């Protein structure tokens, strides 16, 4: 228990504070006490969520969302880091295509859904495609920047020790870009998660997003809030426990803090 506490409320970097969680619960319950239409978090919403986890259909939807996010995010990493490295390495390609990456990044994930559906139909592929277009742009941009902005002193030190060509690129440029890449990947997680929900909401693929639609149509505010709470919790936990921690450790080691 003490260990779980330390994981959820770490000291080294700012993530969750127990006071913040307590305040959130208190405000929610205050709202529920004031308005009969607002369901109680502790007595209604959390038990519903608990019940959902016992429901095989719900778990199937959750697993579906997780699978799409996993596939989509893996492809985002591949396309984003790979594309960013290519752009960073080839100035001409960067000048021609660099602004495309920024443009793609400027379009919200949800806005890609109609196009994805036109191309892939109401399928899982359409959702994954939405995730990639919603999240890969920022990884490309950040990786590209990191590759091109190796600190001059590091460049000179490496060159005087004889590093050049492929060696120089993989042993110096890419590691020097890691903080930027990790920062991009962290943002991409948030963008991808949103794109996943938008994709699932607008296609009829079995997942959390689609369930949002169903419970809203059934006028079940308590179930809707339970789902939204889960979506928020997954977002904040993955960001806090994985990406923020990774980013923090990288920044410490790279001497940026």
């Amino acid at each position, binding site marked *: 228990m003490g260990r779980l506490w330390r994981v959820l409320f770490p000291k080294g970097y700012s993530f969750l504070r127990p006071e913040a969680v307590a305040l959130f619960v208190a405000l929610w319950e205050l709202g529920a006490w004031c308005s009969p239409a607002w369901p109680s978090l502790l007595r209604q919403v959390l038990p519903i969520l608990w019940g959902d986890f016992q429901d095989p259909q719900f778990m199937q939807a959750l697993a579906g969302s997780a699978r799409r996010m996993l596939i989509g995010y893996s492809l985002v990493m591949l396309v984003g880091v790979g594309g960013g490295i290519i752009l960073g390495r080839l100035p001409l390609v960067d000048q021609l295509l660099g602004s495309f990456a920024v443009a793609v990044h400027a379009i919200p994930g949800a806005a890609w859904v109609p196009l994805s559906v036109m191309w892939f139909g109401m399928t899982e592929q359409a959702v994954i495609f939405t995730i990639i277009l919603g999240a890969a742009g920022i990884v490309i941009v950040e990786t590209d920047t990191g590759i091109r902005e190796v600190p001059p*002193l*590091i460049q*000179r*030190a*490496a*060159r*005087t*020790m*004889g*590093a050049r060509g492929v*060696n*120089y690129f993989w*042993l*110096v440029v890419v*590691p*020097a870009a*890691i903080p930027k890449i990790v920062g991009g990947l962290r943002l991409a997680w948030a963008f991808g998660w949103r794109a996943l929900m938008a994709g699932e909401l607008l296609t009829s693929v079995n997942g959390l997003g689609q369930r949002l639609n169903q419970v809203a149509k059934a006028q079940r505010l308590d179930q809707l809030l339970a789902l939204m709470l889960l979506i928020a919790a997954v977002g904040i936990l993955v960001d806090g426990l994985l990406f923020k921690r990774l980013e923090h450790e990288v920044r*410490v*080691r*790279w*001497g940026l803090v």
Partner: protein
Amino acid sequence: MQVQLEHVSKSFRHNGRPLEVLHDVSLTVEDGEFVCLLGPSGCGKSTIINLIAGLDRADTGQITVGGTPVTGPDPSRVVVFQEAALFPWLSVLGNVEFGLRVAGVPAVKRRARALEYLKLVHLSKFVHAYPHQLSGGMKQRVAIARALVLQPAILLLDEPFAALDAQTRAVLQNELLEIWQLARPTILFVTHNVREATGLADRVYVISSRPGCIRDARAIEVPRPRHAEDPLLQAHQHKILGILGEEVEKVFREELGETVHYPEAQHDAPSDHAKGMHI
């Protein structure tokens, strides 16, 4: 290996106008010699290091190392910078192994050699530490080990101890001398500290500022270990300070007159005049 600069000039573009940082500099560093370049901030001494390292090109004149013209960077001419410039993503060991790794030395061999040089700079206990965990002096030790492990014929040091406190600086100066006497690389050491230059070098070149040119070259024929109170050493220091006094005045006049800003003119000299006769 002998280093020779013949009539070297170098300008940078600054605000669209050319700015001469070196004017007709000729100097020679003999094989195995310890030479200091001494001059005020912004006098182009770092530029001389960069030219010899092959990181920069001279506009006119020739730079030869062992009789061969310098065309680019080479691990036989390694630079130790004022900020250690360690790779933060590599451990101390990884940093020292870097040059060997680039040169394609097999893992086991390069590890053994890196450990040997880390022992030389008294860092055996910190082999697995990362740069962010080290003090300034330790970082500079790693930088020196990282350079020495390549067994360079020429070691170029660009104000390597300027950012350190006086005690650490003294310790590292002695260690550098010990290492030099052991392996006898040719050393070119840039500093703006008169006591440091006269305490370390076989010969001192005094560089004037803006554009940099050789104002004075003198052999410091004082046997090592040297003591600060040595009258001959003090005589040298006085003469150099006299020459530099004019130079520093020139710098001040120019700065107060707000004529031009020089890219190299960093006001990074710690204000401990009493400790080391900074200029």
